[in-house]
């Protein structure tokens, strides 16, 4: 076992950190919670791309750097630590690019990966539907073959990044006669396609970060089918293992954590045993979550796809995020209820924003219940329910 980083890795961390500190110093953006999923900043994405930090682990022939998963861990950990606005490229970098790399044709790899890596192609996800949440395999959006094209009809919901995305990674039913897991395919759909419309929805935090997508006879050329026809459900399971694999679940609200600790010190609140006990407990829980996240990377470095390991990490970490937000509000007392923009608001209103936002964390990318099912059956070998 080795919990350390190499000198080279430490230098890379320092490089990323210096870059982000400079960005903040220049006033390009302000650290924010959830910025990996809600911070849309094309200029920042371009500057990150310029450094070669999108698609870091992909082969060089597709615009990547061929670097290790540990390097990507370091990069994303620092992005999250500083609350950097990385939402434009996050999904493509984290999972869609990987899906294209794992299942896509050579043509798709050449068309998309270098553009993602240059920060020119943003992706949103078209997975959930109004009637298909945890039971994703029951999705109803249809893709019907029509010569060289598929025609897609249906509705997707909770699509993040929808107003910025150039493309969507869409799962649609291609064989309605087959058992539901075996009739789904994965497509890349151009966001400008005729018949595709987006309607934003406002979430509980008051943010328009998600949208409904409506497909009305949207035509997609067959070459934009990722992987094999009707194998989409198996591909999405693979992709979800990666969607859950990162540090965003434990560090998505790191700016709040840092701020509330600082606030408690400055206002001498932490001299109260009850306050410092709560903060120390958060620190303990954070460290455990960090290690569960690191373990996922360690599994990937061993050449394996993380499965129950990332399910465990994500299920654990989203509960941590809820406690972090709640403890922060408790410590802030009556000021804790003040929302961003209010007079007298402490910590830029991060605490109530996180408190409300964290209700969704344990639902995105697999509910905690689904994740525990995965851990119990795939990880521990318990019989299917």
């Amino acid at each position, binding site marked *: *076992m*080795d*919990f*350390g*980083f190499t000198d080279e*890795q430490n230098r890379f961390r320092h490089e990323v950190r210096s870059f982000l500190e400079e960005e903040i110093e220049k006033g390009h953006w302000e650290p924010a919670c959830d910025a990996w999923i809600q911070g849309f900043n094309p200029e920042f994405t371009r500057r990150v791309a310029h450094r070669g930090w999108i698609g870091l682990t992909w082969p060089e022939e597709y615009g990547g750097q061929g670097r290790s998963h*540990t390097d990507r861990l370091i990069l994303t950990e620092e992005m999250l630590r500083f609350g950097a606005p990385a939402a434009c490229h996050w999904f493509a970098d984290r999972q869609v690019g990987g899906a294209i790399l794992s299942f896509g044709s050579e043509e798709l790899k050449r068309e998309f990966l270098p553009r993602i890596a240059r920060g020119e192609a943003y992706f949103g996800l078209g997975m959930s539907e109004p009637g298909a949440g945890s039971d994703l395999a029951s999705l109803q959006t249809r893709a019907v073959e029509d010569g060289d094209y598929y025609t897609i009809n249906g509705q997707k919901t909770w699509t993040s990044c929808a107003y910025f995305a150039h493309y969507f990674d869409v799962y649609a039913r291609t064989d309605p006669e087959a058992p539901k897991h075996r009739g789904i395919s994965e497509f890349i759909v151009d966001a400008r396609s005729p018949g595709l419309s987006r309607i934003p929805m406002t979430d509980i935090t008051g943010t328009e970060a998600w949208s409904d997508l409506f497909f009305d006879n949207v035509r997609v050329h067959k070459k934009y089918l990722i992987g094999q026809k009707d194998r989409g459900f198996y591909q999405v399971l693979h992709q979800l293992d990666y969607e859950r694999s990162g540090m965003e679940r434990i560090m998505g609200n790191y700016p709040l954590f840092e701020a509330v*600790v600082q606030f*408690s*010190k400055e206002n001498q609140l*932490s*001299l109260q*045993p009850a*306050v*410092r*006990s709560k*903060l*120390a*407990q958060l*620190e*303990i*829980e954070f*460290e*455990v979550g960090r*290690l*569960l996240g*690191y*373990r996922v*990377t*360690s599994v990937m*470095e*061993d050449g394996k796809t993380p499965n129950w390991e990332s399910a*465990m990490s994500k*299920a*654990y970490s989203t509960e941590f995020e809820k406690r972090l937000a709640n403890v922060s509000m408790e410590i802030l007392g009556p000021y804790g209820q003040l929302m961003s923009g209010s007079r007298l608001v402490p910590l830029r209103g991060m605490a109530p924003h996180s408190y409300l936002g964290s209700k969704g964390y344990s639902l995105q990318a697999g509910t905690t*219940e689904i*994740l*525990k*099912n995965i*851990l*119990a*059956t795939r*990880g*521990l*070998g*318990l*019989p*299917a*329910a």
Partner: protein
Amino acid sequence: MRLALTEEQEMLKRAARDFLDDKCSKAFVRQVEDSETGFSRELWQDMAELGWMGLIVPEQYGGGGMSFLDLAVLLEEMGRSCLPGPFFSTVVLGALTILDAGSEQQKQEYLPGVVRGEKILTLALDEPGFGGYDAGSIKVEATLDGHNYCITGTKLFVPDAHIADHLLCAVRTKPENVIAALVADAGSPQISHAPLKSIGGDRLYEVVFDRLPVPETRLLGGVSQGSMVVDRIVQRAAVAKCCEMVGNIQRVLEMTVDYAKERKQFDRPIGSFQVIQHYCADMATDVDGARLSTYQAAWMLSQALPCAREVAIAKAWMGEASRRVIDLAHQIHGAIGVSMEHDLHFYTRRAKAAEIAFGDADFYREVVAREMGLW
């Protein structure tokens, strides 16, 4: 960064598992727990022959020269099998302290005997009252009189005092009024001990020193260093206790998952019920969090990195996580788990004792808070 055991550590783990499965069955544990000494000299000698007592003692004292991280692997297996006896006292509390703070002469005097299984050591640290696990709480006095320190006072919860050859004793010296660690010989008429019956099934004693003279040459690390010596003892012991507990709760998880697969109610294995599955998932998460935070602390100790924060995190997490794991294990095992005929109680009792030993979660939360600069 690689959070899996190395090939060598896997081999050590397998060898330890095989040996303990063979020699340390639950029937054996039961028998030893019920015996007068709570200790099998025969097993102790077998362990010495395997090189376990000297695993991380340098080769010049007869040991294997391996690292604390390797010892962590061995301790995990010992915790898994509920191994009874004075390994923890002798190696973790005794030999590692001498290695850390002893003079060359002291190392040569004590370590080869430990490695050969001939010497049993223990540590007299806790005292009556409710102090913290830190050097500042020590009150038992050792008064310098010529070339001897004369120890008087009562130490509590001293493990294996009845079979120890030497007791490492944390004292407050007079007239300097500083903390020091002295090596006292057992068997002197000025030391008496009385057993305490404890939940963990280990052997804990009240030890009374009545003007016991100890030569000043038995001072570990000099008079000004005692406080740091004691703090490092507690740090190593806390991590080592966590290592045992990793083995404990890993085994509890496995027993529980196995039982959930076999036990049928309503015509199906109870492990197919989602509520049981989620209990097991929660247990696995607690176990893995405990494993990773424990091994992180052990790795830092073996690299001689400052690790007060990481040790505190590991022990605080372990205390509460192990309790949650054990509680769910009992819930899933149902009534059979609360009978003495089942093996679960061995783990339940040891886990509670380990939670208390060398500081509980409240104690270590204060340490973490201090490391965060909160007070």
